[in-house]
């Protein structure tokens, strides 16, 4: 399920998107302890690709990109707390 949708900031010439959390909880960049992060800053991502997890109510919901692009920056640290509407990452 694509819990996360991207907003388009149409002011910018080069298409920049925000990946927003619809959930509160704890954000994880890795699928599990000792695993590699789903994606690192500067890497190319494609629509539907998982970039992290949000844990709430003992459920892990995948955070997915909605557009192809480059993951420019994570706005939330690994194990950081997110609230609904928070920007998790910026892509271009």
């Amino acid at each position, binding site marked *: 399920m694509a819990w996360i949708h991207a907003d388009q900031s149409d002011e910018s010439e080069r298409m920049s998107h925000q990946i927003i959390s*619809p959930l509160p909880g704890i954000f994880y960049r890795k699928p599990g302890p000792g695993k590699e992060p789903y994606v690192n800053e500067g890497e190319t991502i494609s629509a539907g690709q998982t970039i992290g997890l949000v844990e709430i109510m003992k459920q892990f919901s995948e955070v997915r990109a909605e557009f192809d692009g480059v993951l420019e920056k994570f706005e939330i640290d690994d194990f950081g707390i997110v609230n609904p*509407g928070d920007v998790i990452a910026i892509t271009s």
Partner: protein
Amino acid sequence: MAFDILEAGLSTTVQDQGRIGYYRFGIPQGGSMDQYSATLANRLVGNTAAEAVLECTYIGPKLVTRADAVIAVTGAPVDVFVNGEIRAEYERITLVAGDELKFGVIKGGTKYFIAVHGGIDVPEVLGSRSTYPIGAIGGVEGRALAAGDLVPVGAAIDNGLPALQSIDVVDRPVFSRDVNVRVMLGLYDHHLSAEGLESLLTSEWVLTPVADRMGLRYSGPGVGWKDREQPFGAGQDPSNIVDAGYAVGSIQIPGGTQPIILHRDAVSGGGYAMVATVISADMDLVARCSPGTKTRFVAVTMDQALDARHDYSARAARIWS
């Protein structure tokens, strides 16, 4: 008449006023976590207070109605979309067959409620339509909704009241990130040390993301206990007792670290000392709190708790007069 569920949301369940009378057999009362918000939704669509609604948790469903319907959305603030057009919460909304209902990102709180005229018409189990997922009873097959479900809606009913278009702002619940929750001490507050009791009632506790229909866990400075020799059967930790029944709204503090408020789907008994109990009038308030909410536990007397219950009931009754 029915709704086709295209997307289920995080945890969308059928709930009503609860399954009363079976707690002593271990079946929790269940029901809408925020009863007041749910009753407002029922009032708007012309139901009685007893009809079942859909309780949405953070992420609501996307659904299509198979027939014309009157619905309302109440509870946590969220954008409501009908066929992509934004509609107001706390207002009566008319849908025609084929209309699609979906939601934006929740803006506060945790739960919002969808009522439909006629009510959600799943079979009653032990006198209630409420979903109790752990016991796999009530609701749609005893579980949260899933994509592809067909959710039945009941026949038109006459509640004998004039139609209500909108809930006055003063009658709507407030969603705050900073709350005082009224509690009555007991049954086991005498196990706390003086400093422990002081800490419980004066500290600022912060709701963690570990919160659901069963319980809500808070972080804070913790509490201390009196030294005592644990009786046989009570376990070694001072937060343990010989098993006892849990009042609805009980606060237990396993290990003395993080208080847990037991909510509507919690177990009916166990071996943790209940140091206090949230008064019934404030159970909806607890249900409205999102993770990160700063919370103080304020001790009240039985008389104050009963007055608060009276005020709560009177507020709800005004909606139905």
